[in-house]
């Protein structure tokens, strides 16, 4: 599904964030990208979203090199990116309206796109019916993030990219949204890449964890985490052991 082929990415000055970097992710997999701030997590996500292009090398999604944002990729950012002047319902429908605006041109919208502005099932699924007519400024952080999820899933993506999506939420809200996201990921058979700086979040969300270090990142460091699939993984010793391992790895890299 995702293939990074000798990707180098550097901002104008300084060390490249990625250097000759290779990484593969399969369809339907749930990945967490973990690393300290400044390691290039968000850059990786923007590369996968087609919002940035590699300095050299290729990012392939479904075997096709990425040159611009792809209609079947959904992106959810840390501060939600909701339009402050639009209600929850209007925000949820925004992606569909953008598609309707261009029509099925294969560039901004998939070629098989059928005009459709119905997001009610998504509002229901995400428990947003009661606040559907309110503005982002009037609702809680968790509701805002669910609105962003509804907006993205309404476009029926096959790849979901999330950048620190739950970091500004309180713990109970965060945990319930993490579970909901995993549920939706399985239900929609999404390939998911979630970027986080929180070890606990990576352990819960990632069936596979990609560890990034202080740049330049040269080799993909992948930690398998199959146990995350079991129910109430958070309470298992496997979870605690994984968190400990990740913490050690991050500390070692820091030195």
């Amino acid at each position, binding site marked *: 599904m995702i293939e990074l082929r000798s990707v180098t990415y550097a901002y104008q000055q300084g060390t490249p964030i990625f250097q000759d970097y290779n990484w593969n992710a399969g369809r339907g997999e749930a990945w967490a990208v973990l690393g300290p701030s400044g390691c290039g997590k968000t850059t990786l996500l923007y590369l996968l979203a087609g919002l940035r292009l590699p300095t050299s090398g290729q990012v392939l999604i479904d075997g096709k090199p990425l040159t611009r*944002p792809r209609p079947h990729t959904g992106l959810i950012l840390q501060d939600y990116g909701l339009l402050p002047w639009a209600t929850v319902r209007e925000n949820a429908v925004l992606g569909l309206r953008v598609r309707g605006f261009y029509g099925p041109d294969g560039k901004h919208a998939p070629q098989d796109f059928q005009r459709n502005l119905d997001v009610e099932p998504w509002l229901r699924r995400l428990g947003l019916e009661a606040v559907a007519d309110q503005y982002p400024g009037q609702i809680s952080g968790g509701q805002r993030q669910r609105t962003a999820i509804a907006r993205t899933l309404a476009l029926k993506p096959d790849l979901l990219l999330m950048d620190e999506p739950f970091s500004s939420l309180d713990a109970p809200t965060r945990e319930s949204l993490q579970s909901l996201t995993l549920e939706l990921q399985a239900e929609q058979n999404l390939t998911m890449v979630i970027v986080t700086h929180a070890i606990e979040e990576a352990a819960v969300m990632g069936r596979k964890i990609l560890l990034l270090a202080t740049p330049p990142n040269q080799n993909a460091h992948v930690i398998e985490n199959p146990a995350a699939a079991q129910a109430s993984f958070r309470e298992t010793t496997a979870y605690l052991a994984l968190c400990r391992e990740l913490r050690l790895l991050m500390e070692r890299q820091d030195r």
Partner: protein
Amino acid sequence: MRRRDLLFAVIALILLWQLVAMLVNRPILPPPGLVARTFVTELRGDLLVHFQASLWRVIASTALSVALAAPAGLILGQSKRLNSLFSPLIYLVYPVPKVVFVPIVLLFLGLGDAPKIVIIFLILFFQILVLVRDQAAALRPELIQSVRSLGAGRRALFRFVYLPASLPGILTALRQSVGTAVAVLYVAELYATQKGLGYYIYLNGSTLLNYPAMYAGIVAMSLLGLGLYFSVDWLEKRLCPWLFTS
């Protein structure tokens, strides 16, 4: 602010006027009752024509300045390069009181509506330009990236992000400058025209010495300014409802 409170304020102002008129007791300050009667009779005569002339000038110049300044502000707000090219110019011109250009514009454009419309346009244009530019520039990059990731290109970004984002700026600019615009219209209408409330007020006050009619003209001009102000308020509630939620 409630309607009832506004009504009380209006009554208080009229009472104050009545009181001062009684104390002064000279023809240069007629009481409100007399002015009201004159206002009604004059409306059937010339006053309406003058009012319409002034109203047209304000509306035409407002429409013109929104039509030109809003897109220009959006473009400057989006493009750092263009903005750094133009901002010194705007920085210099923005604070200059545009009313000093009245004689120049009159010299160049002569009689008729055009010079008046241009003067008000100059005032509104820079106000709208600066506010819309700053609002467009203040849009967070994350928001733009999010909407781009939904498939939006330049045109859709304009339609779904920049255009609605600029509305509050346009309306704030109008609210701030509508008073100045009417004031400058008054000054501009003193010259080279025989239509408009400015001319009407001046004619009745200095030439005809018809003070109640002069006051009726002043009331009409105040109503013009108030009406515009209320219209902006109304538009803001209609077009920007998210600003009024808590």
